């Protein structure tokens, strides 16, 4: 099954995403900040990254840029609940950097999984 990397500093949210995706039999890896995500990134395993934007160490925008550089074919989903400048501006930046989809928190996890399947061209069973 395709591999998904979840980069999110909020533990509960990260665990929820992990459980949801594991259920759909995705191979899930996690990182709780942008720096770790970049350091431990495995291009051979990860096909798609779900990343928060505002995080300690390195932010999600940096994650998107770096991972895209290492693996141009990687699919990206950015999620945000806003910060100093509001979710819209961060997510628009993410989009400009090539994020394939963006979600405002709170979002429907099923909707996101639908999107992931679409991006990875997985036929719904």
């Amino acid at each position, binding site marked *: 099954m395709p591999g998904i990397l979840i980069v999110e500093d909020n533990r509960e*949210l990260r665990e*929820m995403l992990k459980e949801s995706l594991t259920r759909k039999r995705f191979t899930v890896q996690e990182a709780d900040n942008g720096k770790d995500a970049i350091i431990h990134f495995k291009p051979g395993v990860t096909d798609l990254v779900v990343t928060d934007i505002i995080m300690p160490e390195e932010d999600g925008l940096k994650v998107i840029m770096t991972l895209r550089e290492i693996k141009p074919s990687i699919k990206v989903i950015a999620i945000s*609940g806003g910060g100093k400048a*509001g*979710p819209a501006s961060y997510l*628009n930046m993410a989009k400009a950097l090539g994020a394939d989809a963006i979600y405002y*928190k*709170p979002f429907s*996890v099923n909707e996101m999984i639908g999107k992931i399947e679409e991006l990875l061209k997985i036929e719904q069973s």
Partner: protein
Amino acid sequence: MKHERGKTENQSSLEFLSRENSFSDHILNNSRSMISVINRDYIYVKVNTTFCKAHRGVADAIIGKSLADVWGKETFTRNIKHNIDRCFSGATVKYEASFNTPQAGKRFFEVIFRPFPSNTGKITYLLAETFDITDLKLTEKIAIEKEEEFKKFETNLPIGFLRCEPDGKIMHVNKAFKLIMDFRNEKSLFSKNLRDYYAEKGIFDMHVEQLSDGKPKSFGRVPLITCSGKEIVCRISGFMTINEEGNPSYIDFAFEDSSRELMLENRLLEAQKLETIGALAGGIAHDFNNILATISGYSELLIEDLPHRSPSSEKVAKIQVAVNKARSLTNQILTFSRQVEQEKVPVSVYEVLKETIGFVKSVAPPSITIRSNYKDKQKYVFADPTQLFRVFLNLITNAIQALEDKKGIITVTLAIEDDKKVRGDINKVIVADEYVVVTFRDTGKGMDQSLIRRIFEPFFTTREIGKGSGLGLSVVHGIVSEMDGAILVSSEKGKGSIFYIYLPVYSEKAGQPEFNGKKRKLLFITGNRHESRILSLALESAGFEMTQSSEIKHFNKILAEPGTRPDLVIYMSDAEQIRIDDMVSSFQKYSITPPCIIISESNQDITEENLVSSGITSQHLVKPVSLKEIETAIQLSIKR
């Protein structure tokens, strides 16, 4: 010795006098005035040395000449002759005139003609004495000019000047002071003591005390009460004049009205305060959204875990409704802190306002009169129409709530102001040449200053706990600010309040975007055609073909005709005549399954069970929804 010397002096004086023709000639020639004797033929018969000097001549050259020769024919006939004639008839004539003298050019003179009678009493000569008063005149002129200059300064400057006795009795004031203090008549002005204009009487006495050392002082801003009872703030400085005995004789005060300056400062402070609260609230909302995302995600997982039609499913559905409500709340906070993305389109303010008023009129009690006055119907602003609707609805609702016993008048006006006028009103960067100004005036209970200062703060409410989130006006503030607009309030306790909304006019021609191919058909099921009309306007301009229905027969008719069947349905939960179940059975009747977007009130539980079990995909949005949210929902529905 003494005697001898005296004698010598007497002798020399006599010698001196004998050297001159006469003593009087000596005086005559040494006088600073030009002195002459003139006969009835207007001819000089005698002139003194001063006269000769002024005419650069010797006596012999002037004597025998006529006045017309010496002063010029025109000057003589115009200025001199009639005065001489009067003098020959026995009067002493005195006048001032300017003449050109050969020695010094144009000079001012004081001229005196005195009759010079002979022994027989007949006036054959007159004595003319002409004294040069040019320097005197000049000094006088400068003094007058100086005084006038000072007066100008005193009357034109917007600073009020006042002189009063040490006890505060007013002696003199300038025009500016009268303007600042709203004086209607002079009487009332001087009948009052300066002390009476101070909002706190003790302050005046304190100022006088501080001035008693005779040094000028500035007292900063002092609250005063004008003649019309208005409270203003003036920057006051003063100076006490102390007489030779060391007692105070009077005090001069300068008053500078700084009410406007203070108001602008306060507004800036308000803006900064709201900015801070916004940042804080935005931060909380952000953390909260993370938590909500977790709750929402797990509840979705839980639904999957539960067996189909399990009694617990309903409970999980309730968790999701609660999440939606919370999401709507965090969204409102983010709107206030301007962190929510707004989808903006050119919108006619008139259209939105008209629909809002139409809606309010349909629900407001008849004891409330709502008047509207549209001075413009053409201008567009760049906004999310649903947000604009919220702004207007919120302000009218607040106006209604301000009315006591649900009675009164609400007046809504729409006008256009140019940038110069707006610059004077709002303390903000001006971004357009014109502004749409919408005012909401009520005849309600009004507010005092301390309340006005806080109304835009989030969670500030005057209503009972539980009756309002206290977010209304803070959201209005956020939406208006996001549009580069401004909101102002003026209010008087017991008389009512006025809210002013300034929105920059959108200058590009608001044309319909062009679409290739077939337009998507969107059906609105609604109980409130005013609100959905606003959304329709926005969605039409986004390229959808809009139909509305609020009545089941009409709805079925639309579904019966394949050509009018919708690609998507937006269901507003206020559609009382078409319930969700009705809608679902109609769909089943015609075997169609268009995707649905359900929009409900935040305090409303609606059951979508039938909808879900009938295989229709639906999305649920909670009011207030933004155009952006609806557009996103539509795109998602259509993709599926």
